[in-house]
């Protein structure tokens, strides 16, 4: 049947048919339109606060757009060219990855082990499970300020403790690696328990009879963990790794508040300035919105690339 034919047919049929009662027409409209209305809030919200800013940022990134300047100047891809030649940007990208690896790596390993522990027969199980979530409930800002104090270069508790066991104090602000460790420890403190609970939920969904069969076959606890638990956790691990990639590469609050003077430089020589912190500095200190938008877009693409890469790696590694 062709489109034209059916169209004509329908038109004629409608003309010929007596007008349905008003009530019926309304309910017809209801079945056709209201589903769209029901799902509309998400799409309208997403379009206004998700999609529009995303595209508008791309538009702004093509201009020399300074806050308060009279007329933004169209410069094409110039911002991106400057960005790829900008040492500070590459330094920020390195810092972001370094902090990401130092946090997400140990975090996921510990989260899986923690989940395995919580999955065992413990006394006061719920109490333990609630306990690991406590750091997540605490305010991020309060947490960061307290960690900033603990990692104080001159009067911090961490250096005092290191001194007790004979290690020279580390300048957590001046040293690149030291500052990354300090910031990664804040991230780990906050997120390990949260990820452990997600992994725990997945562990409990693994059918008991698989384990029982393995037990009958004489598999050791270690063997059962590596041959049953881990492979069956794969979808959850992929989820955890991808979300922590997205979160880790966008890290901002911790390095921002770790700076004792409250600036956005991320240390005296940008030792721990992350990409988002550099973005913030360009936008709200340098007031260069075009450049900041270019940083935002490059970061967006980097996050997608890395999350995709991790997705494939995880899928292949855990068979």
């Amino acid at each position, binding site marked *: 049947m062709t489109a034209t034919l059916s169209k004509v047919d329908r038109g004629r049929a409608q003309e010929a048919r007596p007008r349905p009662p008003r009530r019926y027409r309304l309910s017809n409209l209801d079945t056709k339109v209201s589903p769209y209305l029901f799902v509309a809030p998400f799409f309208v919200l997403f379009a206004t606060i998700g999609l529009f800013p995303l595209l508008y940022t791309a538009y702004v990134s093509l201009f020399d757009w300074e*806050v*308060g300047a009279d007329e933004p100047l169209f410069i094409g891809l110039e911002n991106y060219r400057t960005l790829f030649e900008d040492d500070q940007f590459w330094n920020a990208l390195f810092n972001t990855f370094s902090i990401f690896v130092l946090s997400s790596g140990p975090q996921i390993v510990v989260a899986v082990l923690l989940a395995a522990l919580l999955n065992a027969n413990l006394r006061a199980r719920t109490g333990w499970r609630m306990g690991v979530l406590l750091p997540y409930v605490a305010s991020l800002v309060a947490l960061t300020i307290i960690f900033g104090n603990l990692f104080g270069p*001159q009067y911090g508790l961490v250096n005092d403790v290191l001194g007790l066991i004979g290690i020279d104090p580390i300048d957590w602000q001046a040293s690149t690696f030291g500052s990354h460790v300090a910031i990664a420890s804040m991230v780990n403190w906050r997120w390990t328990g949260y990820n452990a609970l997600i992994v725990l939920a997945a562990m409990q969904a693994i059918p008991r009879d698989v384990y029982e069969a393995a037990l009958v076959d004489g598999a050791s606890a270690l063997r059962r963990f590596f041959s049953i638990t881990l492979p069956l956790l794969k979808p959850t691990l992929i989820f955890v790794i991808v979300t922590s990639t997205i979160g880790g590469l966008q890290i901002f609050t911790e390095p921002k508040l770790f700076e*004792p*003077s409250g*600036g956005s430089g991320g240390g005296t*020589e940008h030792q721990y300035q992350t990409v988002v912190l550099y973005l913030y500095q360009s936008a*709200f200190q340098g007031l260069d919105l075009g450049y900041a938008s270019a940083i935002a877009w490059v970061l967006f693409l980097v996050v997608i690339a890395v999350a995709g890469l991790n997705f494939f790696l995880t899928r292949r590694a855990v068979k």
Partner: protein
Amino acid sequence: MRHRWISVLICAATTAAVTTACGSGGASQSADGKTELTIATFNEFGYEELFKEYEAAHPDVKITQRKTGQGQPHHQNLFTKLGAGSGLADIEGVEEGYLSQFMSKAGQFNDLKEIGPKIEDDRWLAWKTQAITTKDGKLMGYGTDIGPLAMCYRKDLFEKAGLPSDPEGVKALFTTWDAYFAAGDQFIAKVPGVAWFDSAAQVYNAMHNQLETGYYDKSDKLVIDSNTAIKANWNTVTAAVAKGQSARLGAFSNEWNTGFKLGKFATKTCPSWMLGVVESQAGPENKGLWAVTDAFPNGGGNWGGSYLTVPKQSKNAKKAAELAAWLTAPEQQIKAFKAKGTFPSQVKALDAPELLEQTNAYFGDVKAGTLFATQAKKIKAAQYKGPADGQIQETVVSPALQSVEQGKSPDEAWKAAVEGAQKAAK
């Protein structure tokens, strides 16, 4: 029942209308025919009682204050709304640290000489007005308060080092920067474990602001690497750091606060408002140990203080300028000083008995008002600030000095500072 719903609706509609009016900044006429003036301030300007007084004298004016706790978000908001083209208050407070950024956007503010009431030129200290006058002579703001610099020092630590510690005798140590750093050498040799000053940036910034030409020359050309005076200051300060005169505590950090409590440094560059900071950080256990004297190396200096400005966005610019002019008159600023301790920038207010008789118990009942009034009059001229001046000071030079304190070589740090300044100035 039905009537109640209608009235609720009307209420909601009016509220919405009023808030949009407020949001668009230049709220002109409120429902009762009064002119509504909004004024955006940060920290404490001490104006709350003055608004009531002004409203009583001008029944046709209603004042709404938008108060932000801290300066940083206030100015971020100011510059963002300037970019957006709407949303600013009729009167906006601007702090001295943001002056260079503000002056580069002066075109979006009213020339108060043009729209404001006639004010005698000598109401303010000359350097205060000079700093907010454009090259072609436009007055972009009325001065409110200032932060004249004096020297704070720990009496007990000075005694320990065998240095004079009474406010008169100590002045010899603070005549020039050379004398200051020489005394520092003497001090650290005698009192181990205690530094001479808190951080290099704090001393360097005061030295820098005394220079005739700063990071920019008057044609807005960046001269950081050609102005030899800047490099000379840099060398002096980093040499003192190398000798151990710096406590290496970044200002306003938690460790800096701890340094105050533990008495880890013996002197502090002290604008008038710093006395309160010292008192709250050093705490009651150190009461009477800190002193302040009306001397400052190479004359005087200023750190802090604000202006009232009227953006061109304002729909009631003339009336706003009138209010701002009234608020910044000596009589009113003295009242603000009494309310919140903001140190006035008006010449006549500096001779007011209320100010001259003010004492500070924490600093051994010193006559702080007289002391800082003397210091304010020592300041000669305002240094010309180029477009990115504030940013260079805050985000380039200060961190570079701190990196020297963290162990970087002064030459490398200087190179980084020059490069950073060139990038910021672009």
